[in-house]
């Protein structure tokens, strides 16, 4: 069965000091200098079930998961925040294709500020439990300070006090975040809205949009599109090592006692190389479209185990090959060619570059100047539960 997508728990970007505490050991995230390093680091700097994640000063990380029903889950952790994350594995089989992934099942917010899109995950904080009470999947902000927890809803939420077990449902005005706040203390729930919203909540709301831009494009000089374009050019360069295929000498091969199947394969490989325009994807597609799998199975050097595996896969391969020989193959070629040109255009787009630099500068300034006012004294008249 073919695994067509993997949606593992991870992060879309980070900046500053990020620590993961796993089974008593602290793993400090390393700083990557560029995309190449970043992708290598993401292989070893993983997020796992039960991890305690801590952000330092001027540090932000955006954690990501995907639920089985294909909803994106995210937690944007602000500077000096801490949480414990729980996840569970899922798999989904459709025909002969399998999707696997990890969804966030529970988020224990310990301290700090978070923008949470749980898409079904359980969310708790020291004084409160937060549940969705709306048709839409919610995104909300939680600010945990010593004396209370503040929930800033985007849609209707049910907030329960862990101490009193009393619940309260919020109705944020016009479904907009930042126009209502629920304050949960050890003894009750308080609600403020509109002009009574605290200055700190407004400041958090402003920072939310800016910190959402913390992704690898923010972290490095080279943009993601430039990186992809560079990698594509590099892979074309590596194809050049097969340049000798252009001058394939069949007579010499016969002299070297190669089997007719081997010579045929070599000829076909050379033809595909010539028509691929040095694109590894076009080369691979051409090879697949023209491969004689039965002959390949009987090639010298193929082990009996390999032959058996190939025999089992043969009907499926032939079916796919037929599909790819027709219009589907041509369409795929056109799609690959298009994607390449699109990537080249986007990688050299001065407007994208300018916009990104502006966003980077904004996010950097927001991190450098990150400071929030304190909450005023909580007045009893705001008590709702």
């Amino acid at each position, binding site marked *: 069965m073919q695994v067509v997508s993997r949606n593992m728990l991870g992060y879309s970007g980070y900046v500053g000091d990020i620590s993961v505490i796993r089974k008593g050991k602290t793993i400090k995230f390393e700083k990557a200098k560029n995309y190449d390093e970043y992708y290598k680091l993401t292989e070893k700097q993983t997020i796992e079930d039960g991890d305690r994640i801590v952000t330092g000063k001027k540090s932000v990380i955006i954690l990501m998961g995907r639920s089985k029903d294909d909803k994106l889950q995210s937690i944007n952790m602000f500077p000096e925040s801490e949480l414990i994350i729980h996840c569970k594995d899922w798999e989904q089989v459709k025909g002969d294709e399998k999707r696997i992934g990890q969804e966030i099942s529970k988020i224990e917010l310990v301290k700090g500020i978070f923008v949470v899109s749980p898409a079904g995950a359980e969310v708790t904080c020291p004084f409160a439990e937060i549940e969705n009470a709306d048709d839409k999947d919610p995104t909300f902000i939680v600010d945990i300070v010593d004396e209370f927890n503040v929930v800033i809803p985007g849609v209707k939420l049910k907030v329960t006090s862990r101490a009193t077990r009393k619940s309260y449902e919020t109705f944020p005005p016009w479904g907009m975040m930042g126009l209502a706040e629920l304050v949960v203390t050890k003894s009750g729930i308080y609600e403020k809205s509109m002009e009574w919203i605290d200055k700190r909540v407004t400041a958090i709301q402003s920072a939310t949009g800016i910190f959402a831009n913390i992704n690898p494009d923010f972290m490095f000089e080279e943009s993601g599109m430039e990186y992809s374009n560079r990698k594509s050019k590099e892979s074309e360069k590596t194809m050049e090592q097969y340049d000798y295929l252009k001058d394939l000498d069949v007579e010499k091969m016969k002299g070297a006692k190669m089997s007719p199947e081997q010579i045929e394969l070599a000829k076909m490989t050379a033809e595909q190389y010539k028509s691929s325009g040095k694109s590894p994807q076009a080369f691979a597609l051409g090879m697949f479209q023209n491969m004689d799998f039965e002959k390949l199975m009987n090639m010298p050097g193929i082990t009996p185990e390999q032959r058996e595996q190939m025999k089992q896969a043969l009907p499926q391969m032939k079916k796919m090959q037929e599909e790819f020989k027709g*219009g589907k193959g041509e*369409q795929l070629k*056109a*799609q690959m060619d*298009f994607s390449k*040109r*699109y990537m080249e*255009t986007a990688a050299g*787009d001065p*407007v994208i570059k*300018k*916009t990104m630099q502006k966003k980077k500068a904004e996010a950097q300034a927001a991190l450098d100047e990150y400071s929030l006012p304190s909450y005023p004294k909580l007045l009893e008249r705001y008590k709702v539960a």
Partner: protein
Amino acid sequence: MGGSPLDGPGKKGEEAFAEFLSKAYSEIARVFKDRKMEQFENMAKAADSNFQSLRQAAFSRAKDCKSASSLTEAVEDDVVSMQSAFIKEYQSKEMDDDGFFTGMMYDFRQVKYRLALYRGFIGALGAARAALEKAGKEDAVKAAKDAGMREVEAAKEEYRKYVTEYDQVASKLGNGDITDVSSTIMRYFDLSHEALVLEVPNKSSENPRDRILRLTGSKEGELSNLRSKAYHAKSVELEKLAAAATIAFNTYRGAFAALFVISELG
């Protein structure tokens, strides 16, 4: 309707685009009703029923696409007159309600855009139907596809003409904020078209209207940005060009939606 293989799927598409336009008329009628402006509410209703009575004729005569376009001209006049009458009324009564005025201008624009969508769709479909009838059995499908594509290409070039002109005028103004938007549309103009062409052979359960609106939604946003940049720059010339570009864009994407229907021929 003469039994063209395009009639069934074509009619479904036509109905979807017509419903879309009708909704825009209904919205105008609703707002005027809420405002107790009965005369204007009736104008919106009359414009809709005028469109409804022309629809059948437009579809049956669509194989002569020039006739189809001229049929929609009459409906276009309705919205232009309604808009002018409303502006006059608003000014003469000194209504001083910016939200209401801006909202109505938005609604009138929606009618114009949706009419352009309808016109583009019916025009390209008509061209394909005519080609299908004219061609021999063997190359009929190819002829229909080519005819549809020619309509799309023509609409695309019209749309390109206005965006190019906008970009040139904006460049002369030297306002980078505006040229960022127009140069981006120009930069991706052919690529965006190619992306749509690549989408045509894919199977889809969506009706052609929803499919084209989904695929071109971000472009719609960019064009709306052209308009708002022109407005903030207080450039009447740019505003006019942005409006013309948006109408041309809608004709183009309406025509493109017909390609989805034509591709069902095989």
